[in-house]
């Protein structure tokens, strides 16, 4: 089965054979690999004689790989899911509404906007205080404020909806 691994904006195709566990890369070169789990999500990979120690964890439906001081996110699709996704994407429209969620848990110290306000990109929406630091939450694009879900002085959890925006134009 073919798998497409996406790292940053590049794609790497691998062909994996279920029967003999052999893997070849996108140039159809067979890969000489040895993969051993050392425990706790920590793995050893020896690839063509090069030795790596890495830590792989699942994250938002993809994987996060930590190796040699680098932290890299990767997503994987096989042939079937790729075809399916293409079909879904072709029929979906980009949503014009966006809910801004709290990137970290914290305290809402100030709200700078009101429902109905028209905003430019990077306009400050609200101030969120966490670990004694004030973080400004900004508008991701030119937009209009539709709804505000929180009040000043309120404590919010991570991913809690804060403000609903409608994209302009």
């Amino acid at each position, binding site marked *: 089965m073919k*798998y497409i*691994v996406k*790292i*940053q904006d*590049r794609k*790497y195709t*691998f062909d*994996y054979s279920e029967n003999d566990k052999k*893997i070849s*890369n996108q140039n159809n070169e067979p*890969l000489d*690999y040895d*993969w051993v*789990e050392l425990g*706790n*999500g*920590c*793995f050893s*990979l020896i*690839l063509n004689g*090069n030795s*790596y*120690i*890495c*830590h*792989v*964890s*699942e994250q938002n439906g*993809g*994987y996060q*790989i*930590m*190796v*040699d*001081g*680098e*932290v*890299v996110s*990767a997503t*994987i699709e096989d042939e079937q899911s790729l075809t399916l996704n293409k079909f879904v994407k072709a029929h979906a429209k980009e949503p014009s509404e966006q809910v801004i969620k709290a*990137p*970290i*848990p*914290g305290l809402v*110290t*100030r709200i700078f906007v009101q429902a109905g306000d028209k905003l430019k990109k990077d306009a400050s929406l609200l*101030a969120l*205080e*966490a*670990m*004694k*630091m*004030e*973080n400004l939450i900004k508008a991701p694009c030119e937009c209009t404020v539709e709804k505000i879900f929180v009040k000043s002085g309120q404590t919010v959890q991570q991913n809690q909806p804060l403000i609903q925006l409608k994209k302009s134009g």
Partner: protein
Amino acid sequence: MFKKILIANRGEIALRIIRSCKDLGIKTIAVYSDIDRSSPHVQFADEAYPLGGTTSAETYLDGNKIIRIAKDHGAEAVHPGYGFLAENAAFARDAQNAGLVFIGPSPESIELMGSKTAARSLMEKHGVPTIPGSKKALQSEEEALAEAQRIGYPVLLKASAGGGGKGMRLVENPGELPSALQSASREAQSAFGDSSIYIEKYLEQPRHIEFQILADSHGNVVYLGERECSIQRRHQKIIEEAPSVVLDSELRKKMGRAAIQAAKACNYLNAGTIEFMLDKHRNFYFLEMNTRLQVEHPVTELVTGLDLVQEQIRIACGEAISLSSVGERFWGHAVECRIYAEDVENNFTPSPGKITYLKPADGPGIREDSGVMQGNEISLYYDPMISKLIAWGKDREQAVRRMIRALKEYQLSGIKTNIPFLIRILQHPAFISGELSTTFIDEHRSELFKQPVTSPEAIGLMALLKHINRQRRISYRSDKNHKTPTSQWKMLGRMKHSR
């Protein structure tokens, strides 16, 4: 010498103090909040007592609770570490009144240097150069605008009671000033309970260079050389080193003498740090004095061979320091990196969560002062710094190479850390050639925030193998109807017991 000391802190610094106490044969008492029950400082102390509660205010900032625990359990002295109550004059006074020795300066010195405006005028009186700016807290927006106009933009707004970059704002033009002033004083109010803000000239491409001093109760004051802490993000230090590449013996002597002058001006006792800014033209200005042990004290320890916590304890016991020759002689070079639980790509926002896997680095020349163990939770209640890695080398190049090696070996999972970012800084040509300034990260932003992927095919394969493995495990489980296989050893054991 003391028999028992209470450590009024948490995290890496509490553990670091406990270790020095053990080396001196002193018993230690740890205090802890509800969520710190599993933290290492609790496990490694001889005794540990709960403070009850979670927030800083109801735990590590509650001086009365801490003093009561110290008295109830026979502690003779309190070590405050850094942060929390370390620069709280009222706590130092209360501890003394309760018959405890506060390991640090007198409440009067803390008060004097704690107010930045009072500290500045004291320094000016004693001939220590300070940065141009107003000496008093601003009363209004109009006053701020007029003062900024007088000293010239860019200007820096700072909290009178502040530290650690909280309540600090850079203002480039008059239009930015009103909103910056408001948000700085709001941040100052919530961090220090005092919203006063003052204004000063912003020095372009300055270096942060600080001098470690020790002062004993016999009137001896010495300096233990400098630390350069120019690499900062959000006005907080992340990489520190000793010695600084820019100081020659002459400038070191000059700044060292100014540091001693500053310490004597406030009748200082115990370990302290005088922070200076050094501009392009090698003019130095007094920034502030930290009346406590610094986060980055280990780099001084590695190049001087001293244990600063032991020195603090000896001084607090009334012993005289005997290090008058120190200050000019360093052994090699030391670098420290602060490992923070934070999301670098997302403007360094804190990244709380559980540490699911932790294997710290070691090897030649590496020291780690860590405050966490595998399984610990990084909460939003306290500072997101989780550990400090310190590397020593015979010269700067060896120390930096060792640090890069150690950071690459460091394995920590479950939360985001700044480790990849630290490596990119250390590998940057400007860092290697020692061209540092407090604006280093902004200046080299485009290169530092780029994420190189060194071996993408190998990384792709790692993700794939984990993916395949996961699918196989799921199918394996469904074959067995979710029944876990029973160990043959267990069955043998059961048979034995049923006999």
